[in-house]
């Protein structure tokens, strides 16, 4: 079959690889009908996530049709149309029982490696380095889905297109969890760093959860325009002092909660500070360029919540501990526990509360993935979200 493979930093190639097959009784093989390039795939492309190998099949946002089932999967049938959550979860461990699916204790065969890096291991993830298990991803014609009796959700409603449900696999629940962690109550003002796909879903979700106002922060006018279309007020950090502007917009209180939807490759509006973080990251003295998180912390209201769904990989310098501690902030974070959001968010889509396809700016064939990574990385052609069709 054909698959988009990581072949080095800034290099993705379409390669012919063996077809996947059932390895375990709880596996399914899915023929991919739609898949997407995620912002977090760019961290792999840019070489900032450790433990990638030449030839790794990429992709953790995908959906398709079940073509083969292991003997122990009884809740799905061949021919079912399914969406597949990006974390792999067994459904039986303590973490899964507590609905912390991205922390599944069993799904990462390379747990020993993840344990060395993070202290305790995390779940397996499709197409996302050997740190998260070395699972082939879904930017391919077919994919093996382990624990298929737990993860995939059958989409029964034929009136919903792939593009409307595809993002349930990652970015919609991720943005939603970012907003949910803010514990939004009446009158709350939420600030969102990053108006990429996850940031846009965080904006939309904050409103779904009752936010009074949402403020989106980015530097690309076309992305800020998309945030504005979801009802957000916007700040371009290359044009204004974000901390001062937020203070000014919130009666001097600061946002009640701040969402970091940027992660490890943040950009700073001041070239010198940006260069400082870039050089340290380039020399591997830190793995993160943490400006968005630093600013989210220092900008948050006293006693507020900082919610982190942007992806980080290792260590960051100049974490503002003084601001964080003295101002009684709460820091919440996590790779999305997608499984717990599938049904409620599908319901919201069916109820027409939201149509997630609004983030899509580009549609390509799988074979065009290498070009897709390039234009997505460089924000060319007003690129926000690319959907690939095998």
């Amino acid at each position, binding site marked *: 079959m054909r*698959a988009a*493979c990581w072949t080095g930093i800034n290099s993705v190639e379409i*390669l012919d*690889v*063996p*077809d*996947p*097959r059932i*390895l*375990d*009784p*709880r596996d399914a093989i899915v023929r991919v009908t739609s898949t997407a390039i995620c912002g977090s795939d760019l961290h792999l492309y840019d070489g900032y996530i450790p433990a990638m*190998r*030449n*030839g*790794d*099949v990429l992709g953790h946002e995908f959906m398709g049709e079940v073509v083969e089932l292991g003997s*122990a999967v009884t809740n799905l049938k061949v021919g079912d149309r399914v969406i597949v959550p990006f974390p792999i979860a*067994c459904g*039986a*461990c*303590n973490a899964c*029982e507590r609905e912390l699916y991205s922390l599944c*204790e*069993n*799904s*990462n*065969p*390379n*747990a*020993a*490696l993840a344990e*060395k890096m993070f202290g305790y291991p995390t779940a*397996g993830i499709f*197409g996302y380095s*050997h740190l998260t*298990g*070395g*699972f*082939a*991803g879904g930017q391919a014609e077919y994919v*093996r889905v*382990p*624990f298929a009796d737990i993860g995939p959700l059958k989409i029964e409603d034929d009136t919903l297109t792939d593009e409307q449900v595809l993002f349930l696999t990652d970015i919609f629940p991720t943005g939603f969890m970012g907003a949910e962690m803010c514990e939004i109550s009446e009158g709350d003002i939420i600030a969102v760093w990053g108006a990429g796909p996850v940031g846009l879903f965080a904006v939309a979700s904050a409103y779904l959860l009752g936010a009074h106002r949402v403020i989106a922060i980015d530097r690309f006018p076309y992305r800020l325009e998309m945030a504005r279309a979801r009802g957000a007020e916007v700040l371009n950090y290359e044009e204004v002092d974000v901390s001062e502007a937020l203070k000014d917009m919130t009666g001097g209180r600061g946002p009640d909660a701040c969402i970091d939807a940027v992660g490890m490759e943040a950009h700073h509006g001041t070239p010198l500070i940006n260069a400082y973080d870039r050089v340290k990251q380039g020399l591997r003295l830190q793995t993160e360029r943490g400006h968005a998180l630093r600013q989210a912390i220092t900008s948050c209201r006293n006693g507020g919540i900082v919610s982190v769904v942007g992806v980080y990989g290792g260590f960051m310098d100049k974490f503002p501990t003084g601001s964080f501690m003295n101002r009684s902030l709460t820091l919440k974070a996590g790779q999305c526990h997608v499984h717990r959001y599938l049904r409620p968010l599908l319901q919201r889509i069916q109820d027409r509360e939201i149509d997630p396809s609004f983030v899509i700016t580009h549609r390509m064939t799988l074979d065009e993935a290498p070009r897709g990574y390039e234009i997505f990385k460089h924000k060319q052609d007003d690129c926000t979200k690319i959907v690939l069709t095998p």
Partner: protein
Amino acid sequence: MSHHEHHDPLGRALGWFSVGLGAAQLAMPDAVNRMVGVRATPTARRVMRAMGAREVAAGVAILATHRTVFFWGRVAGDVLDLALLTLGRSPGAGARTAGAAAAVVGATVADVMRSVSGDPAPSHTRAVATVNRAPDEVRRAWDDLHAGVGTPGSVTFTEAPAGQGTEVVLETSDGHARDELRRFKQLVETGHVVRSDATPDAGGTLQQLPYRAAQPAEVSS
């Protein structure tokens, strides 16, 4: 006793050899002296007992710590033994003395080999995991899995608080307790050992780096 077990078979053999030889020298100095062709004088008896005490002390120190310095101590003791054999040999017992000297030289070779290899890394490992099942069930699963092949180490099962399952503590001497226990937990909780495209043989230990790429394996492999 040291907390760690040591994978040091040569060292352990030399330690017991020291204790055994030293005990014989202490208990039957005259018999040992005759065996190695040394004249049975009161002085020879006192020297043989002293050497016996030295052997026992060295053996105990080696077995307790496996520290390389005590093997160098044995090398020094071997040299002393050879010197004493030469000094004390009785006329007409040349063959016995030569045999004894050959035995000491053999021991010296083993002592030097062990000494230059340095302190062994403790390979004893202890792993702890919580398995999300009741203790009875976990113990039964453990016994079933290891029926016929034997447990790879010592294992205990304790109920975890608030119904979180069973805390399993596994101690092995082969350095694989963690991987062993992780796979056991996967097997009990999920029904199989978890495999990815990069680890189709259910590997995934740090020892197995580097992995194959995360793409489906050829059917033949």
